[in-house]
């Protein structure tokens, strides 16, 4: 088509000329003079140029041609002003990036429909129990669940779910999976259509039927190579056969494990966010039942409402139907998981969303300022174009084209920033926000970013253009020597910059406080030498490993492990090093009951040496201590400080629960495993021997003298060399675990710092834009001043005076706000007071300096105003 058009348009001028010639001839034939004939012919014909345009327009879309030309022009003019272009693109990019990132997160957490079916009818049952003390929240008790299932009219199913770890063997690499035990009816209610096979039937849960399992998509692809024939086959979970009956589709996740159990990890070693398999269960298993403050309930009870039943109706039925313990006060509450997940985080997320929208608006205001500043340098060009007859619409379209380019580039910057932000966000532990695993950058995100960027760019350009018109038309078309045009009121622009500076100060102060708190947090020594301690866990299947076999296995294992290169010590313990103690009980000190709580740990010989816990007084454990009489124990410093302050505890006696009359033989240093801001707990260490009772899932600790990157592989080789069906899991360095406990503090630190830097950048660009604009507007005034003899330095001072005045106002306002607002951060601060004068002063200084720098360029430009040129600018 285009070629045809080009061919047809070739020689169009000739065609038109020919037409006129013929008409001329005709007119001559009618009796006109040649000159008159030609004149009449031309009149009758019309404007050839216009006709040429109209004809070519037949072959193209006019507006497309215009757009292309506008864009080319805009590109050229932007290239001539690189500083402006960079500042505008960056500003817009920041605004767009912020809005897009937060919006993706808000969408992923709050708005996107949950990835399982019936999300509005499937509810979690929470039982609130109060007995002369704080509230405990748990699920239903087994008898309550049974009774409700039978008698309910409003619920179509009641069931529960519990996390279920299982060793998967019989595959090339045996691995530990984290799945779920779930009531079939509940699973069916939530499930999507399986990719292969079926979901769970009620019959599957009956005792006596073959045990079945439904696999998650990820499990199927990773360990079974997406082989459809695995359905119907048996796989080995926890050394028992399970028949695979179905595969769930990709992305299906019910329920979310990590939100409910922060410590659970899946086969990848990362915190689990969705089950890797589902097995049916009717009778609650041991892991399902939990002890909440002494009340035994099934932890996660779910129910399915019949269609049309409301939450209130169901709650009422639960409260009336279920047997309630007479001595407790109970209350059944049905909680919709979607609402519950959102409720906790909604206010925070909406706050963030509001904040970034404000950031975007500030960014747009900044770009508008920059555009206005630039426009004041293009006054002449604008005047000429106006006087040549360029319509307002045409000039607006030109401005829009520029805005399109800036918006497009800003969008690209924003997208890059968003990708970085989301990537960082996904490294955070999943229990910070629900559904974090569902947040990612996709086509929708990119479209959103581009639309926002282009809309902002175009909108801002047209607004700036409109503003400039109103001034310029009047000013530039005046012929007489005009008085210095009154610049538009600068107060609102300066107020805007002051607000930017103020909010920047607040954000920066907050970020600085959080950061310094984080630094202090991480610099506190954990109390033991956690470097180069590698640990892992294995589960010994109960059917095959009894007491003697377990101790033989552990002995062989530790022997073989100790000959690995770099290994200094090896220790087998009965549980992983829990960061923080569990329960605490009041001890009996030297026969007298005391108050407070003491926790205990069972520690094998070599415990303290392997973990690098120094012994302050006395000795640690040696082999055989567990059967020593009198029974002995080691205590930690915190315990000594509480119960034997200032005295030597060696030889004293302590009893705790089942351990009676232990003699203290040593004092160990406090282990601040976990957060240093956590309370220091008094601990008792009791010697233990693996032969006493077989350890089901022993943890092995190795201390190396240097980094040993191949340790994981070597360990697996040795373990599988002893028994190829065993699975090694939870393997890794202790340091990594400890770092992970700081994850939320570091997240707050990083995100608040980013916000603060963004605010600083925006404020600086904003200031620069405003000053450039006002200097440009006052060019004539400056020229006049210079012409009548003003010192260059006074000019600079005039500009700086403007700048620093605005910044100072902003800084003061910001400091006042920071003073009040920093109290909100109290909960997250460690070792720092909210009113730390050093930090506040530092932030104030920073903004003043940055303000000065931002003012530098316009100030210099002011001094270079040539009075002759300035006076001529009319």
């Amino acid at each position, binding site marked *: 088509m285009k070629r045809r058009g080009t061919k047809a348009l070739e*020689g169009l001028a000739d065609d038109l000329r020919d037409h006129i010639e013929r008409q001329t001839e005709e007119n001559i034939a009618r009796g006109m003079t040649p000159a008159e004939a030609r004149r009449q012919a031309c009149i009758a014909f019309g404007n050839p140029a216009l006709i040429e345009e109209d004809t070519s327009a037949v072959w193209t879309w006019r507006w497309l041609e215009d757009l292309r030309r506008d864009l080319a022009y805009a590109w050229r003019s932007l290239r001539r002003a690189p500083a402006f272009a960079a500042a505008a693109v960056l500003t817009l990019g920041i605004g767009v990036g912020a809005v897009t990132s937060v919006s993706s997160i808000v969408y992923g957490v709050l708005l996107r429909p949950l990835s399982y079916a019936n999300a509005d009818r499937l509810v979690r049952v929470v039982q609130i129990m109060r007995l002369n003390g704080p509230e405990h929240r748990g699920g239903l008790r087994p008898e309550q669940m049974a009774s409700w299932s039978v008698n309910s009219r409003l619920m179509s199913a009641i069931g529960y779910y519990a996390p279920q770890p299982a060793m998967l063997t019989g595959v090339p690499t045996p691995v530990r999976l984290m799945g779920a035990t779930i009531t079939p009816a509940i699973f069916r209610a939530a499930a999507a259509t399986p990719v292969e096979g079926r979901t769970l039937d009620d019959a599957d849960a009956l005792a006596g039927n073959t045990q079945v399992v439904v696999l998650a998509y990820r499990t199927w692809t990773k360990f079974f190579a997406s082989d459809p024939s695995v359905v119907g086959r048996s796989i080995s979970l926890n050394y028992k056969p399970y028949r695979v009956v179905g595969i769930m589709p990709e992305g299906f996740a019910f329920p979310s494990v990590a939100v409910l159990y922060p410590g659970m990890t899946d086969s990848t070693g990362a915190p689990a966010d969705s089950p890797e398999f589902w097995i049916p269960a009717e009778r609650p298993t041991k892991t399902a039942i939990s002890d909440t403050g002494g009340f035994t309930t099934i932890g996660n009870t779910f129910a399915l409402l019949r269609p049309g039943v409301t939450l209130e109706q169901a709650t009422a039925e639960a409260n009336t139907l279920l047997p309630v313990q007479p001595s407790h006060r109970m209350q059944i509450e049905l909680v919709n998981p979607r609402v519950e997940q959102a409720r906790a985080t909604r206010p925070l997320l909406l706050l963030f969303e509001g904040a970034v929208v404000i950031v975007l608006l500030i960014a747009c205001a900044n770009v508008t300022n920059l555009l206005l500043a630039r426009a004041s340098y293009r006054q002449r060009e604008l005047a000429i174009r106006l006087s040549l007859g360029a319509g307002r619409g045409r000039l607006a379209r030109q401005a829009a084209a520029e805005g399109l380019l800036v918006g497009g580039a800003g969008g690209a910057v924003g997208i890059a920033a968003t990708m970085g932000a989301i990537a960082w966000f996904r490294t955070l532990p999943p229990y910070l926000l629900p559904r974090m695993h569902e947040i990612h950058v996709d086509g929708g995100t990119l479209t959103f970013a581009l639309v926002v960027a282009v809309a902002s760019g175009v909108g801002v350009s047209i607004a700036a253009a409109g503003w400039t018109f109103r001034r310029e038309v009047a000013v530039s078309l005046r012929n007489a020597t005009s008085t210095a045009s009154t610049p538009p009121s600068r107060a609102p622009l300066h107020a805007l910059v002051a607000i930017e500076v103020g909010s920047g100060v607040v954000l920066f102060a907050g970020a600085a406080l959080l950061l310094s708190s984080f630094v202090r947090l991480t610099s506190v020594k954990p109390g033991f030498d956690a470097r180069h301690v590698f640990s892992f866990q294995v589960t010994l299947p109960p059917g095959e490993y009894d007491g003697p076999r377990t101790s033989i296995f552990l002995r062989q294992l530790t022997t073989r492990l100790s000959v690995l290169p770099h290994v200094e010590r090896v220790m087998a313990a009965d549980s992983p090093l829990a960061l923080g103690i569990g329960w605490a009980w009041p001890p009996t000190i030297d026969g007298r009951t005391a108050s407070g709580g003491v926790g205990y740990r069972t520690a094998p010989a070599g415990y303290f040496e392997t973990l690098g816990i120094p012994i302050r007084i006395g000795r640690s454990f040696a082999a055989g201590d567990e059967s020593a009489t009198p029974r002995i124990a080691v205590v930690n410093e915190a315990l000594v400080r509480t119960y034997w302050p200032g005295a030597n505890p060696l030889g004293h006696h302590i009893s705790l629960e089942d351990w009676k009359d232990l003699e203290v033989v040593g004092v160990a240093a406090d282990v601040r495993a976990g957060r240093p801001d956590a309370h220091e707990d008094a601990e008792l260490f009791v010697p233990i021997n693996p032969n006493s009772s077989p350890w089901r899932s022993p943890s092995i600790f190795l201390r190396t003298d240097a980094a040993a990157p191949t340790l994981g592989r070597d360990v697996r080789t040795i373990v599988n060399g002893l028994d190829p069906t065993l699975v090694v899991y939870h393997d890794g360095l202790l340091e990594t675990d400890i770092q992970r406990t700081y994850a939320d503090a570091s997240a707050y630190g990083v995100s608040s710092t980013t916000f603060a830097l963004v605010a600083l950048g925006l404020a600086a660009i904003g200031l620069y834009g405003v000053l450039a604009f006002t200097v440009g507007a006052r060019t004539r005034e400056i020229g006049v001043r210079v012409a009548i003899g003003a010192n260059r330095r006074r000019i600079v001072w005039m500009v700086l005076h403007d700048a620093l005045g605005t910044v100072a106002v902003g800084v003061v306002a910001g400091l006042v706000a920071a003073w009040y607002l920093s109290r909100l951060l109290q909960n997250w601060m460690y070792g720092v007071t909210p009113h730390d004068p050093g930090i506040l002063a530092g932030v104030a200084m920073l903004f003043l300096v940055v303000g000065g720098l931002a003012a530098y360029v316009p100030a210099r430009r002011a001094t270079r105003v040539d009075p002759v040129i300035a006076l001529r600018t009319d």
Partner: protein
Amino acid sequence: MPARDERERLELLQGTLDLLILRTLRLGPAHGHTIAKAIERGSDDVLQVEQGSLYPALHRLIKRGWVDFELGASENNRRAKFYRLTAAGMRQLAVETSKWDRMVAAIARIMRSRAAEGER
């Protein structure tokens, strides 16, 4: 030459001009000017072709494949295009003609019946 009476110029709608051009070209290929004159003479000077709209109309017809062009030399060796009807254009002309006839007949029916009423 006294100006033509403006009021007598019936403004030709875009579609109608295209139809007239096709009809004119049915008689044989022609230059642009010739087509315009043919329309005017063919209508006894009732229809005046707005010359500014002739060439865009011709190009529209070329774009839709109903008219084709050749470069030719005219009598005085001026270079100008010859426009002619294509086979598709011939078919389109038949379609448009029948549409036109139907429309004219319908309007005439209404006008005549109205006139009859008005006389009563």
